[in-house]
C-alpha cells in the first residue's frame, strides 16, 4: 500500500456502513478525491471533529482500490466552530463547498488555484474579514475565472470594444456592446459591473464601498451566470441567506 500526505479541505461527508464515512476531500496536490474514514462516527473516534465539512486538515492516506483510506488527520485551522455558530455563514460555506466540488470535474486531478480560492474564502468567512455575501460572490466569480468562464465586465465579450457597456448577457459571456448583444440581455447598473470587476480582481477596498442594491444585483447576475455554466444549479445557493 502506498502512503501519502497532503493538505485538504473536507467538502462533504456521507455515512458508510455502521460507523464509517466517505469523506470528499479537496486536496492541495491530488485534487478532489473521496476517501474512507473508518470508525469516524463512533464518539470515541480519534478523528473527532477533524473530518467534518469545512475542516482544514493535514492528512495521511493510503491508496485503496475504490477509495483511499484516511489514516491520520491533524487540524491546520478550525473553521467549523465559527462557521456553524453563524447560520448565514454556514449557508455560504455550504455553497462554497458545493461549488468547489462542481468546479473540479475530474477526481485526482490537481487544481491548486481552485484549492487556494476555497481555503482563502473559508478563512475570510470564518474570520469575518469582509461581508459574508461579498465573500461568496468574490469566490464564485474567481473560481469561474479559474475554470475559464470569466465573464467580461468591461469590454464587449464578442468584439472587444472598450466598455463599460449597457448590456450583460449570460449566453454572450458577460458585457456586450449594442451591436453584439443577443435579443435577451440584462441591463445592470454600471456600479454593479464595477463591483463585480472589483470582486473578480480582488479589489476589496473598492468592493466594500459598494451599495446594497448593487450587491444584490451582482449576486443575482453571478448566480444566473453560474447556473448557465454549470449544467445544473447549486442546491445550496437558494438556501443561502443574503442580508
Amino acid at each position, binding site marked *: 500500500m502506498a502512503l501519502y500526505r497532503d493538505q485538504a479541505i473536507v467538502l462533504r461527508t456521507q*455515512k458508510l456502513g455502521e460507523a464509517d464515512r466517505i469523506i470528499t476531500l479537496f486536496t492541495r496536490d491530488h485534487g478532489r478525491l473521496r476517501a474512507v474514514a473508518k470508525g469516524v462516527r463512533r464518539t470515541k473516534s480519534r478523528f*473527532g471533529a477533524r473530518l467534518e*465539512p469545512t475542516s482544514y486538515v493535514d492528512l495521511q492516506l493510503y491508496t485503496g482500490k475504490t477509495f483511499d483510506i484516511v489514516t491520520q488527520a491533524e487540524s491546520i485551522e478550525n473553521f467549523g466552530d465559527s462557521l456553524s455558530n453563524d447560520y448565514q455563514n454556514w449557508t455560504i460555506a455550504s455553497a462554497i463547498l458545493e461549488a468547489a466540488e462542481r468546479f473540479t470535474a475530474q477526481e485526482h486531478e490537481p487544481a491548486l488555484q481552485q484549492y487556494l480560492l476555497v481555503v482563502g474564502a473559508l478563512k475570510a468567512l470564518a474570520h469575518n474579514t469582509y461581508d459574508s455575501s461579498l465573500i461568496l460572490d468574490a469566490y464564485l466569480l474567481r473560481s469561474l475565472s479559474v475554470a475559464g468562464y470569466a465573464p467580461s465586465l468591461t469590454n464587449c465579450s464578442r468584439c472587444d470594444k472598450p466598455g463599460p457597456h449597457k448590456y450583460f448577457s449570460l449566453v454572450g459571456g458577460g458585457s456586450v456592446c449594442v451591436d453584439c448583444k443577443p435579443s435577451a440581455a440584462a441591463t445592470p447598473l454600471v456600479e454593479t459591473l464595477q463591483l463585480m470587476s472589483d470582486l473578480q480582481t480582488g479589489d476589496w477596498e473598492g468592493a466594500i464601498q459598494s451599495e446594497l442594491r448593487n450587491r444584490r444585483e451582482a449576486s443575482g447576475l453571478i448566480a444566473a451566470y453560474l447556473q448557465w455554466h454549470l449544467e445544473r444549479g447549486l442546491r*445550496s445557493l437558494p438556501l443561502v441567506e443574503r442580508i
Partner: protein
Amino acid sequence: MYEGAIQDLIDELGRLPGIGPKSAQRIAFHIIQSERVDVARLVDVLRTVKERVKFCTVCGNITEEELCKICRDPRRDNTMICVVEESKDVLAIEKTREFRGKYHVLGGAISPIDGIGPENLRIRELMVRLAATEIQEIIIATDPNLEGEATATYLARLIKPLEIKISRLASGLPVGGDLEYADEVTLGRAFEGRRTLEG
C-alpha cells in the same frame, strides 16, 4: 452489471443508507440463496411496517397510533421539549432516564449542500407547538457535528424572541477515552461546558 431482476434488487438495496455497492451485492445474493419462506417473511414485515407505522402528529416520533407513547403519557413534563434529529435519538435519550419532558423530532438536520433547508424539516410544527402550549424550556439535542450545530444555531435564533429558556446538550470528552486523543474542537467544548466539582 447483472441483468434484470438481480440488478434491480442490487440497485434498490444500494439506495439504502450506509449500504455501498459491495454490501448491496452481498445482500442481494444472500436473498437469492435464502429459503422462499424466509424471503416471504421479510416481504411481509416490510409491507406491515409501511402500512402501520406513521409519525406522531404532535412530535414526529414514530408510532402506530395517532400520538406516540411519550405524547400520550400524562406523567411526562409538558413544560420541556427536547429537540432531536431522528426517532432513534429519542430512543437513545430515553435509555438514559435523565429526561422526563417531551420530544420534537425534526426529521434530520439542515444541510444546504444536500438541498435540505429549514422548510424541509419539522421546524414549522415546532414553532406552532411553542406558540400554543405551556413550554418553558427547550433542549436542543441535534447531533454533535457541524450540521447539528448549524441546525441548533438556526433554531436558537428562531426561538430567542419567544423568551423560552433554551439550552444545547453539552458536548465534551467521551467517557472511557484518553484526553490526548481528543481533537481540539471536542476539547474546546469540554472546557466551555466544564462543571463545578462538589468536593
